[in-house]
């Protein structure tokens, strides 16, 4: 990694670059800072003529207001995100393993199909999916958003896990097979434990996908009792647009899990993103 030291010895320039990067990073993080800080303000202060960078009166009122609203939508969000995570893991980890280990007929086609489905914007399939779900009587249930978000994350995970399975040594599996382990046994007892880090990363990915989803749950769920946090916040925004600090607090609570997962898993996520896979 010392290649770049050649043309950057002077620490002055280094400091300059550092400052520039920090400034850009500040611009980037400012919207986040703004939403967090506004959630601690009173409503009158949010839309004051001169915006304040730090709340004059620091209040947790907005969060207290939201606690009552939260229980149902939080439960729904967790059910949808966990369901989608479990479903996509159960389906995509074996698929990635199969595509990496075995000579599957039409493998190139499979990979291409996964690639294409991953790239299609959700707006293109939203309407036909709506028709399918209404025919299957799945509208206004947890299953509709779970199935649709899992469909998005499955191709992503398959493409992300495959390179990892490709580089795994074959000898371990062979040894287990000689000792009388079945193909499925090898998969569950050898392959999955070895690839635990990447499997966990993909679990995080699919959880965040489903947690962040708004379009699907908005289209497929009109039932308030089954609304996740994302679509709840969207309806709040359009309903009583004046209670901004409450909505901000809600927005912060919505952001928190995704950002925490993302930051703790950052190393693995970056590795996954660059290993030939694509963002969803």
């Amino acid at each position, binding site marked *: 990694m010392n290649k770049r030291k050649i043309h950057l010895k002077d620490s002055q320039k*280094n400091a300059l670059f550092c400052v520039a*990067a920090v400034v850009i990073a500040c611009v*980037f993080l400012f919207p986040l800072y703004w939403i967090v800080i506004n959630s601690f303000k009173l409503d009158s202060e949010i839309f004051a003529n001169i915006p304040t960078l730090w709340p004059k009166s620091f209040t947790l009122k907005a969060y207290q207001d939201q606690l009552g609203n939260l229980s149902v939508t939080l439960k729904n969000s967790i059910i949808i995100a966990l369901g989608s995570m479990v479903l996509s893991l159960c389906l995509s980890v074996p698929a990635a393993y199969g595509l990496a280990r*075995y000579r599957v007929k039409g493998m190139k086609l499979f990979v291409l199909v996964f690639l294409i489905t991953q790239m*299609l914007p959700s707006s*293109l399939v939203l309407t036909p999916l709506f028709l*399918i779900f209404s025919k299957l009587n799945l509208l206004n249930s947890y299953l509709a958003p779970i199935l649709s978000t899992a469909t998005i994350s499955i191709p992503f995970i398959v493409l992300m896990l495959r390179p990892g399975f490709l580089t795994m040594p074959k000898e371990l599996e062979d040894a287990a097979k000689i000792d009388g382990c079945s193909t499925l046994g090898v998969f569950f007892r050898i392959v999955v434990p070895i690839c635990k880090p990447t499997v966990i990363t993909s679990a995080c990915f699919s959880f965040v996908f489903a947690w962040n989803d708004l379009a699907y749950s908005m289209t497929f769920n009109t039932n308030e009792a089954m609304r996740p946090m994302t679509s709840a916040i*969207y309806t709040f*925004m359009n309903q009583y647009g004046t209670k901004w600090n409450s909505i*901000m607090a809600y927005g912060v609570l919505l952001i928190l899990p995704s950002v925490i997962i993302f930051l703790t898993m950052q190393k693995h996520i970056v590795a996954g993103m660059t290993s030939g896979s694509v963002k969803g």
Partner: protein
Amino acid sequence: MKKRRNIRLLLHAKLQSFSKLKNFRGYKKGEWTGFYFVLPSFLGVIIFMLLPFCDVLRRSFLGAVSGTWVGLENYRTIFDNTAFRLAAGNTLRFEMVCIPLLLLISLLVALVLDDKLKCTQLLKSCFLVPMAIPVASIVLLWRALFHERGMFSGFLHFLNLPGEDWMNTPWAFWILVFSYVWKNLGYDVVLWMAGLAGIPANLYEAAQVDGAGKWQCFWHITLPNLLPSLFTITVLSILNSFKVFREAYLVAGNYPHESMYLLQHLFNNWYRDLSMDKMSAAAVINAGVIFLLVLLLKRAWDFGER
């Protein structure tokens, strides 16, 4: 003579392919085991992704009310449609502005971060965080920031300039550009950095021995070696830009300012009018463009692996 040579060549090829097969991992276990591993997820993707899309394809050739075959009539209609032209034009304009901007900024940031600053890791996290933020919160943020009496107007007020409801001005387009760059910069920076890490260090060492300066190194080593990455990153960025429509729609609702009337709004309006015929045709065209881009991308990857 020629025939014998041909036979020998054929035999050689056969032998080669045989040895390849023998080396192929798990080949002897049969093709079906692998197939069973892939089948469930593949079926899921087909049912919930490809079949719906095939349905769209079918409807794009049918009349909306009659349901009879109308051939390319729908396609002709949408190309004559002013709303479609506006949306497609705006989308094109959006791409032309966003992609170069994003590529340039992310390359600059990647170059800076690649210089092994003390805070590289921290900064990388800063740039990646926007990727994780739910669309719903982004919409909320943008509304609060660019509201008539929001943060941005307040700041201008501070400078004695009039505030505005920014989402209803031509600036709406630029807000959208900013949100795209904001959301995707971290991803592109990571990709650029992977490309930079792939350049062999001895190239720089050799150049330095020959007395090349920093700029010469950059122009003659860094940039040419980044070309393959450039291609991949461009295609990926374009593909991701199609996903920003969702934000565009949610931020501005059904009646956005004309400058940010993108394909997503068009789809939505047609969906509410139940003009499935026009919507399907436009969706097929949109998907066709994406399909072409994916093929290009795959080409690039295959080329890179060779």
